[in-house]
């Protein structure tokens, strides 16, 4: 499994500690993730769901297919399933864990659950200090509620 080193202030990947050894290259993962997100955002929900489902089968030990599938679920209003995916240890032990928290915040926001949103933020306020995009998303969500 690929190990990531992340500049948490910018939220951007800065270096790769070990060469990628998965079935799908990083560039292809990014392209497929973007395609799935675009599909989930727009009028191709089945395609988005199918794409992330296939990625889950191909790379079950990677976090990104679960994050993508959770995004698809959030866009579809299936918040409980999204939380379940994002709380999976594959995600919480990955470099995407802070982003997963932000997506869980988005799910609480869309489900109109302000208490859960604020509680999630408080529980993870310290680690989120290091991830500006995720923290910024949380702050906007809390402000908007």
């Amino acid at each position, binding site marked *: 499994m690929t190990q990531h080193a*992340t500049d948490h202030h910018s939220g951007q990947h800065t270096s790769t500690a070990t060469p990628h050894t998965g079935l799908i290259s990083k560039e292809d993962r990014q392209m497929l993730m973007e395609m799935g997100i675009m599909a989930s955002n727009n009028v191709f929900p089945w395609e988005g769901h199918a794409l992330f489902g296939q990625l889950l089968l191909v790379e079950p030990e990677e976090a990104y297919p679960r994050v993508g599938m959770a995004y698809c679920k959030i866009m*579809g209003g299936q918040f409980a399933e999204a939380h379940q995916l994002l709380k999976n240890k594959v995600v919480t032990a990955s470099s995407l864990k802070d982003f997963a928290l932000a997506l869980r915040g988005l799910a609480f926001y869309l489900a109109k659950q302000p208490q859960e949103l604020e509680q999630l933020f408080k529980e993870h306020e310290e680690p989120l200090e290091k991830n500006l995009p995720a923290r910024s998303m949380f702050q906007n969500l809390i402000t908007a509620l």
Partner: protein
Amino acid sequence: MASPQGLPTTPPYWNTPYNEITPLNGPGASPMPGVISPYATYGMNLNFIAAVMFPQVASTFIALQTSLLNVDASNPAALLQVQLTMSEYENAVQSTSQMYASFQTLIKAIIQNI
């Protein structure tokens, strides 16, 4: 059918919007798999995003639209109501512009960090 992790692998699935104010949420929005939704057109695309991600914009827009359609131009109180509704809509747009920028940054960061 489910994967070894218990996750669905087949797409008997329809992304039903949770927001009740959008017509996308009607009974007709849940077709059988493989059947193209009558709402799945590019024309509805922006409404779909707006309703799911930015419900306050969608709701205030519909309120504004309704008040404009029913306004009595000879009634100052009704005109004031339209102005108030318009103000609410503008406030919703203003607040979501920040949200949208933050949301876009988050999605890009996720993709970059895969």
